[in-house]
């Protein structure tokens, strides 16, 4: 029931977002233009309107939906697996790795598509290194703890690599480009980018959804999960693969968008409780809605568009504080 309500709200927001932006298209006209793609309606709108709707706003809206859903469902899965409500999808270094990949691509003046590939690959590489560290040093102890520590170290390492690239980059062209990328934005997204990113994101979502019951069991810790019959090693590996592919794909098209993967799972938990059977679908829908709404705001708040990553952080912080005050027992 709740999920159906959320889906309707999401669809409303989704279509409403077409009417938002500097170029004026009323929501009624926007709906009609969308509808005209399915049934033939005599055109009373300008060709520019249609271009704006389908070439600019549609990819952006789809991107916000995908990226928001990917980040929050990854965060939800990680919080359970690491048994820690403070964990976000970047905990194993994927964002730092992707940042370095993107910065490197810009330094060597790669094409836009290759910059995304580079970000994706380095995002995966960073998590790969973290995973190996975890596997090597956790023979006896708590494997997840070692992995988090490894992630912090690898994340820091790649962040300093980013600094090196910025330091040597051309301060008039490349440096601002890197800086803007790191702030996160969906302004330059086009449909081909989306097709590529959608594959790992949708696949990861499907697998995590199928694993939702085992995620419950994992949140009771390794030893108990094993005693309950879960093959924790394989499960952990699968979750990390899914979350990493999704986050790396999201970050490579959007840049760094903070707080979504940390906050949205908590919002979802507030609504439906910690059981992953409900938490996974809710995190997906709520994450999509959150980023859509924030991106809408980013588009209209000021005459100059503000990078999305900045707006999510500014809006996310008070929400996070609200959650801290109101749901203390929610995660203690």
């Amino acid at each position, binding site marked *: 029931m709740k999920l159906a309500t959320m889906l309707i709200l999401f669809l409303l927001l989704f279509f409403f977002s077409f009417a938002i932006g500097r170029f004026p298209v009323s929501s009624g006209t926007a709906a009609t233009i969308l509808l005209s793609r399915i049934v033939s309606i005599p055109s009373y709108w300008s060709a520019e309107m249609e271009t704006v709707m389908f070439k600019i706003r549609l990819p952006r809206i789809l991107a916000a939906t995908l990226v928001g859903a990917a980040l929050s469902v990854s965060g939800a899965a990680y919080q359970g697996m690491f048994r820690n409500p403070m964990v976000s999808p970047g905990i194993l270094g994927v964002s730092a790795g992707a940042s370095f990949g993107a910065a490197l691509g810009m330094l060597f003046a790669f094409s836009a598509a290759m910059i995304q590939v580079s970000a994706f690959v380095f995002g995966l590489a960073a998590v790969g290194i973290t995973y190996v560290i975890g596997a090597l040093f956790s023979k006896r102890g708590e494997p997840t703890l070692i992995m988090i520590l490894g992630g912090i170290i690898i994340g820091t390492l790649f962040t300093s690599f980013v600094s090196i690239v910025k330091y040597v980059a051309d301060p008039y062209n490349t440096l601002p480009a890197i800086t803007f990328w790191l702030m996160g934005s969906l302004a330059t997204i086009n449909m081909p980018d989306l097709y590529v990113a959608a594959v790992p994101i949708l696949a990861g979502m499907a697998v995590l959804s199928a694993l939702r*019951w085992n995620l419950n069991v994992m949140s009771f810790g390794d030893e108990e999960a094993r*005693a*309950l*019959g*879960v093959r924790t090693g394989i499960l952990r590996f699968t979750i990390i693969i899914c979350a990493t592919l999704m986050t790396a794909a999201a970050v490579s098209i959007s840049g760094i968008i903070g707080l979504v993967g940390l906050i949205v799972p908590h919002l979802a938990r507030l609504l439906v409780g910690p059981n992953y059977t409900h938490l996974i679908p809710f995190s997906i829908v709520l994450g999509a809605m959150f980023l859509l709404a924030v991106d809408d705001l980013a588009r209209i708040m000021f005459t100059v568009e503000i990078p999305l990553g900045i707006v999510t952080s500014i809006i996310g912080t008070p929400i996070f504080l609200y959650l801290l005050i109101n749901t203390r027992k929610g995660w203690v």
Partner: protein
Amino acid sequence: MLEVRNAYCGYGAKAVVKDISFTIAPGELLCLLGPNGVGKTTLFKTILGSLKLQAGEILLHDEDVSKWSRRRFATKVGYVPQAHTPPFPFQVLDVVTMGRTAHIGMFSSPSAHDVAIAEETLHTLGISYLRDSVYTEISGGERQLVLIARALAQQPEILIMDEPTSNLDFGNQIRVLEHIRNVAKKDRLSVILTTHYPNHALIYASKAVVLGRDNRVSVGTPQEVITEEYLKDAYNVDAQLLGVKNRRGGNFTICIPALQM
């Protein structure tokens, strides 16, 4: 029927527990007793399969369990950890239903049948009223019972419990032990539990495995193996065993410190 045969357990190459053998039959309650640091937890983890056996065998119905999958093992052996607080406020029924995990596939979720089994185990332990409570908000004794319910939902033949009475008040200790004894007697489960209290073994157990210093092990009825000599040797205290008759005519051996007045 679980059999531990000439088992050597420990971390790495060093054996902490050497050459231990015992069996436990359906309906038996076995207490594992021993001071800190003699390998109680090591033996425990080895039986559970978290630690590899260094030598020897662990057999379930004459089959070597080391070759079993985690899932198959979990359908035969249930584990009750010490009551703890998980990071997320799960509903009690959800926690108990997690006991069904081994019976459902990795990519599926529990069915109505699984939930019904979980509800039944809550009923067996007389805690149906906790069904919709939040696991992190109930008392320590209740939480311990919920964990027992979860292990029972696995529908195992053997139940392994890690100090089920630690951190519980006097009433909850007795209630939890009473339930454990019932589960063994009525449902014909084999129960292995560790405890720090010789009296719990003497009063409730049908069998005891006591670990002493220098890898000494003895197996027998609690009255046979928990002796004043053992308590002196293992714990370095002067304790005395007394035979008592309770109000309902039951004969018990209990252990008290031999204090000087």
